[in-house]
């Protein structure tokens, strides 16, 4: 790793949470506007996190603390690896460390909500993981590599060849963003039958750490979305902005669905979209 990459990685790791927090702030503001309210200040997520960091610590057991830290570290590592332009699939697998430990942390607590949330979180992972792998495979089929540097050097926007797979990716994005209709295991507020699912038993600083880790994850996934239009800055920003806007609208116009529906619907739609897109690719290449 030369110095340039190294400094880029450091920069990415430092800036990612700010970007994520800002994004969350904008998200809340826009959501408010969509609901006819004026909404919180853009910096609200930062206030929230700082406040949480300053609250008293209380946990049910030490595993929770262990697990949040692992979650944070794995998300940071993912962002760093992305900045290093490593292998997409590897980044994905590293990301699962965090996801799994989040579940373990939730299951470590003998609380019904946390446990139900953990089960649902597992189902959510079950839903989006195959889709992400398939998306990466799709990218490979186009660019011939899983490595981000190779993908970035591909001369055309991948989006043009993989529009449907991009849609599949946004399913995963919605699940990761914990937005309706997929805010099943946990959500931004606790207005949900499982209270806040996996997050129910976290509080104070640990909740803050989870939030920061979540920001890293969001940045990572948006970065992956960004790969689909990596050839020009304008295209990239436009694509991401539109995607995010669509996410917020979808969040506001759909109720939360059940996990059974999610699993069957997302798999069925996701996999058929992927097949269709791959078929298009093959048809194109002949």
């Amino acid at each position: 790793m030369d110095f340039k990459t190294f400094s880029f990685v450091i920069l990415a790791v430092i800036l990612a949470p700010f970007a994520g927090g800002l994004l969350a702030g904008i998200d809340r503001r826009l959501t408010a506007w969509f609901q006819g309210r004026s909404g919180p200040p853009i910096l609200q997520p930062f206030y929230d996190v700082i406040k949480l960091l300053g609250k008293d610590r209380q946990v049910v057991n030490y595993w929770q603390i262990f697990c949040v830290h692992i979650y944070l570290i794995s998300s940071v590592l993912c962002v760093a690896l992305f900045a290093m332009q490593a292998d997409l699939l590897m980044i994905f697998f590293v990301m699962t460390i965090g996801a799994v430990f989040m579940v373990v942390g939730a299951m470590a607590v003998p609380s019904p909500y946390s446990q139900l949330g953990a089960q649902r979180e597992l189902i959510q992972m079950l839903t989006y993981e195959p889709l992400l792998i398939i998306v990466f495979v799709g990218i490979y089929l186009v660019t011939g590599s899983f490595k981000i540097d190779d993908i970035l050097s591909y001369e055309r926007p991948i989006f043009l060849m993989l529009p449907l797979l991009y849609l599949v990716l946004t399913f995963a994005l919605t699940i990761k963003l914990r937005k309706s209709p997929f805010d099943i295991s946990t959500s931004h507020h606790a207005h949900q039958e499982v209270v806040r699912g996996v997050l129910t038993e976290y509080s104070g600083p640990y909740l803050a750490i989870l939030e920061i880790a979540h920001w890293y994850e969001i940045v990572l996934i948006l970065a992956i979305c960004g790969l689909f239009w990596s050839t020009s800055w304008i295209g990239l920003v436009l694509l991401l902005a539109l995607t995010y806007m669509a996410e917020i609208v979808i969040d506001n116009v759909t109720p939360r669905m059940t996990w059974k529906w999610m699993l069957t619907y997302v798999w069925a739609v996701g996999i058929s979209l992927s097949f269709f897109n791959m078929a298009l690719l093959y048809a194109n290449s002949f």
Partner: protein
Amino acid sequence: MLAPQMLGISIILPFIAAALCLINVPTLRSALVIGTGVVVSLASLLLVQSGTFSLTPESILGINPDGLIAVLDFALLFVILGIAYRLKNKLIAGLTLLQIVPLAVLELFMNPGENMGPALYVDQFSMIMCMVISIVGSLICLYGLPYMREHEHHLKLEKSKQGRFFFFMVLFLGAMNGLVFSNNLLWLYFFWEVTTLCSFMLIKHDGTEIAVKNATRALWMNMLGGVAFVFALIIFRSQGLPLSLQEIITAESASKLALLPVGLLCFAGFTKAAQMPFQSWLCGAMVAPTPISALLHSSTMVKAGVYLVIRLAPAFAGTLFSNYVALFGAFTFLAAAVLALSQSNGKKILAYSTISNLGMIVACAGINTPAAISAAVLLIVFHAISKALMFLCVGSIEQKIGSRDIEDMRGLVDIMPRTTMMAALGMVTLFLPPFGALLSKWMAVEASAHLPLVVIMLALGSALTMVFWGRWLGMIMTSVVPDKVLPTERMPLFFSVPLWTLAVSAVVISFTAPGLYTSMVLPVLERFYSADLYTAARGVISNNIGMFAIYPVFVVMALGVIYAVRASSAKRFFRRGDYVTPYVCGLQDPADPRRLGFKGPLGVWSEFKTTNYYMENIIGESRITGWINLIAIGILIILLAGVF
């Protein structure tokens, strides 16, 4: 160079030691098991020093080895026939006869010709296998010593059956070593059948009705593979091909003609590796005491099956058959993962996860690119270590809590913290990066990227894997007593030695995966493949389509774990925080707020109680096994048709 001697030791010593184990003296038996374990392990390590070589022993104990093997073959088959008679099982008898007769024809009427090839062949692949068998296998045998004492104590046996037990256990190691070193297919066949017999005897060890039933099933399924094996031999010979593994896979001539017998051998491998639809024998084997399951699952038996398939992979590279094998393996991977998801029986989960992993290995052999084959070989190693660890942990847990249901393991960390940690480590090494099993999975997915159907199955399967491991990992960590000091746990010496060794090696070997790859896997691959090989430099394994940075991930995660452990240590935490009880909508018991649960309707106390989702009525074992078998048989038929 003592290579030939080491080779001899690792095959013959277990046979001799096994025979001595039959003398029913506990101390002698312990000494024998420990001694053999140590010697065989050392031998396997020493063997690594030597390079590739082949060998045809002049004589064994003064007898012509080929003749000896032939005689033993028949002896073995007649023993099985005897067993079939005792069990009054016509199927097994028929299958045995189907082997005796062709074998006789082969030995008596078909001319061996000139090109026999060497009897034994040693390369890095067989060395890896030998190390796995010898070291992991021996550790399991060691673990068996205290385990079986406790086991017979539980069962209140009058007369110890441990002599027989260790006879077959140790014998198994020898047979497996023989199997992986054999080049002559007739030798290979002999060892193959020895493992079949051993596994039968071990599964029925407890002698209960269900044990006998499951053992019988294991026997006939494996005999089915044996039949395929014998017919493969006959076809080889009738086509004038040598019965030498190395020549079959390297010879240019062995292209189209040899595909049928190769297919049959693969079929034999599938039965031994418990691929769908033969998974039931391996699940049935769960009735046996845990060391047996551990042995069958991790380092021996099933590994023999995949070993053979991988060995044969170059012979069918680039054929349609190969793609079908990939599909077949991927299907097994997925189906077994689905079944594992529906299980709450810990050993069953382990069993299905084994089958699933073997499916992945078979799929890799079918994908048949160097990346895939590296994945397969590495997965054998990593899976063996971690799975052995898991089995041994579950064994200890079962002896302590008297159940193998994972629902009963909730909160285990408060009862047996050490074993729980080991089990957690075992699970993590099986399904999370940066550990080896996941490295292999990564390689497999990237290698299969051009086969959409296969990659989707792998993707689905790997997500399912994540779920059933993740929740098990979570539930054993459910700490029920929030602020109690952890109880210390005492383990017998021969529990802790194997557990620690396996746990440490699972981590260390994962860390040294790049080195392992360059020194042990690459040389084998280079003989058959030239393009797209992975290179391992500075802890990063990469090829032209992907790369996996093992050292960086390892280092960061290790630092992270250290930090997290410090952050969560009770001493540090107490300075700033508080342990509290979970949220139950405000219904805590005011008199005893530490109690877990809530005061519900009618003023009745409800204990904390949760279960995982097993979705019994959607993917329950009894519901979908039939369908899975049907599909698997379908794929198998297409696959075998693919050889023509």
